[in-house]
């Protein structure tokens, strides 16, 4: 069975309710929609962030997301997936990433969305650089992100 899959990398913002509508409109097989939005924080461990610049590897970023979407579809009975990841300049409060999953029942949608987000963090080729008041620096990766995917491999 083929299901609607949308993967977009874009500089522009996205509208969460518009994307939900686009994925679910006119369908009666969907019982659950799970939405994850990742948003730019204004402050983290090292103080005030004024902006983020997201660099990505065109071509590979889409392919890598698609690879994990295929894995999620093979693992859970999902009926639709939308993933949007922004690149370029974002400021605190802006959207960065959207993961939408649909299924007949909630468990598949919850787990599929979480699986996709966990793998997106560690495998999709995006890099954040943070602008603070006085300096700009590349964000360090978190071991907790690598740890998060370990549970998907247990059994």
């Amino acid at each position: 069975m083929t299901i609607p899959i949308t993967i977009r990398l874009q500089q522009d913002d996205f509208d969460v309710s518009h994307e939900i509508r686009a994925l679910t409109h006119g369908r009666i097989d969907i019982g659950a929609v799970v939405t994850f939005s990742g948003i730019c924080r204004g402050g983290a461990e090292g103080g005030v962030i004024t902006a983020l610049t997201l660099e990505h590897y065109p071509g590979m970023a889409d392919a890598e997301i698609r690879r994990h979407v295929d894995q999620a579809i093979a693992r859970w009975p999902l009926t639709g997936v939308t993933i949007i990841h922004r690149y370029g300049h974002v400021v605190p409060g802006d959207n960065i990433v959207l993961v939408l999953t649909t299924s007949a029942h909630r468990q598949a949608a919850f787990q599929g969305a979480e699986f996709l987000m966990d793998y997106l963090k560690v495998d999709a080729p995006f890099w954040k650089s943070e602008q603070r008041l006085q300096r700009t620096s590349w964000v360090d990766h978190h071991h907790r992100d690598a740890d998060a995917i370990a549970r998907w491999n247990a059994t």
Partner: protein
Amino acid sequence: MKVIYFAWVRERVGKAEETVDPPPSVRTINDLIQWLVGRGEEYAHAFEKPVVRAAIDHIHVKLDASIVGAGEIAFFPPMTGG
């Protein structure tokens, strides 16, 4: 072959991409890194942290992967998207 760099690896190398022609003895990603490091300080600086990742033709690979037949090789830090 084409080699491309991202994030702080790109900043340290000082360029986003280049075409290189390593000798036949350079067979793996690790060999290529050592060969690049031998070309100048900027490469030594880029690869001094043992965390740099690699991809061949858009697929993540380990450092012992063969580069035979590779079209595009990318080097980058651990990813921080999402």
